[in-house]
């Protein structure tokens, strides 16, 4: 049996297929916990993704789906003031992804920190390969004059020697975490 607000969501968003089956299979306490998320009016795709991540976390950790959906961190996001519904959905997704893929999160955080360092100290933005797959990084530079180029060349030289650049290559190559 579906709770009223879940039923309403399913009808309003014309939810069908596997998501509908999944929602219908939820226990009452799981539906109750989910209703707090439904209040953010996520799209069916977003809800499916949030639910998938939650189900996987519950299965991995051997806990109930209800306990994942009503974790303190998750409720804190739902109750946060001054943040709109879209932003809250993004935060929820980030939280669940981080919980589901802690190692990947550590890698991405570490890479972002080094990229930020390079931006700050060398003024250049180092781009990583898509999906972090491959061993080359790229730099986009633009110059308005030969003088600009000379200055950029000096900054690139500085970037090449910067420990964060080595750290980025080391992480991508699996030499460090």
């Amino acid at each position: 049996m579906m709770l009223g607000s879940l039923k309403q969501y399913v009808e309003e968003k014309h939810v069908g297929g596997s998501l509908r089956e999944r929602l219908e299979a939820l226990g009452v306490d799981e539906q109750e916990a989910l209703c707090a998320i439904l209040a953010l009016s996520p799209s069916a795709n977003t809800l499916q993704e949030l639910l998938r991540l939650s189900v996987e976390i519950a299965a991995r950790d051997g806990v109930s789906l209800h306990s994942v959906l009503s974790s303190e961190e998750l409720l804190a996001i739902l109750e946060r003031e001054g943040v709109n519904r879209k932003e809250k959905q993004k935060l929820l997704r980030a939280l669940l992804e981080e919980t589901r893929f802690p190692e990947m999160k550590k890698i991405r955080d570490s890479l972002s920190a080094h990229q930020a360092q390079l931006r700050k100290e060398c003024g250049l933005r180092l781009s990583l390969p898509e999906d972090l797959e491959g061993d080359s990084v790229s730099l986009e530079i633009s110059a308005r004059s030969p003088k600009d180029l000379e200055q950029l060349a000096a900054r690139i030289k500085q970037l090449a020697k910067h420990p964060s650049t080595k750290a980025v290559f080391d992480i991508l190559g699996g030499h460090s975490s």
Partner: protein
Amino acid sequence: MTYDGRDRSAFWPEKLLVREESLADPLAKRLMSKLEGHAEISILSEKGDPLAADTAGDSSDAERFTKGKRTLLLQRHSGSWLKACPGTSGHVCCNLWIVNPGEGCPFDCTYCYLQSYLKRNPTLKLYTNIQEMLSEIETRASAEPNRMFRVGTGELIDSLVWDDLSEQTLELVPFFARIPNVLLELKSKDDYVENLLTLRNEHLGKTVVSWSVNAKSVTEKDERSTASLEQRIAAAEKVVEAGYRVGFHFDPLVHFEGWEDEYRDTVQSIFSRIPAERVAWVSISTLRYRSDLQDMMLARFPESKIPFGEQFLAKDRKIRYVQPLRFRMLHFVRDELMAIRKELPVYMCMESSSAWRQITGGAPVAGSELSEVFSRKGKLPIIEEGHHL
């Protein structure tokens, strides 16, 4: 030789189906006689896989696949046998040739790709006309006498799992010993090597017996019905004693809490008993699979943690670990192996040239310890004392 290991009848088929065309083939006769009283034996005249999606009613892929694990169909294979390993574009290929003496496996590993590859035709199969397979290999090898053919039988089937019933290795091993430019690789998670042991004077170093190995906890939890790591190593020890070289495939490396310690232990357990110089090659590769396998794993192994690891769906629709993590795992296991013996031929399976650059410093080069694996010319295998080609 008598086998004093596991109760093999636990994974023997409950149903043996034999196609009419195979009835007179020696392999079919042997299996029918050995399975009499154990399996329900029937003759099959209809074509197709009896558990195929369109013939087996409305049961799910997962249910049919599980049922298929206990049904063995004996039939003749039509079409060509010998194929170059399909590899993957953009990946460094190890030049393995593949023949399939059958397909499907009664063992049940959570991550087994056959669950998606064979989900539409899940009945286990053994081909009864393997004489034709051997003739095709001989014709191909003699047409290119300067090329070395490393031929594996363990792509769609475990090379040893049926050997107590089929005795196929008694034909395969002497055949490969007779043809100068072929080398047989048997690949298994089983420990049944009794037939191989009777061939100690006949294999002439032309058969490498290899085992897929893993961390102990992966083997215990996610490789149902297979021999334990300890049993596989014991079997490897026996064939080494009978003069064979052996191979090990760390496949798939799985990421979990404590993976480093467990993979280190596996390396140590192997090499505390197997002399490194008797190892023809070791491969390493990390967990990766097509996205549809995820659903099969979830349906068939609800208690397994493997589907909930750090692997993610990449843009190419393959599920794998993010590169920095994947490379870290490959580095780690390779370093552990190289610490045992610097010259150990360790290669990476299904990895890009970028992985080779990062992890080994470059793609394999001619004349290196990996020549036998990667060179098309190859070098002839090391022949044991007293064995002659």
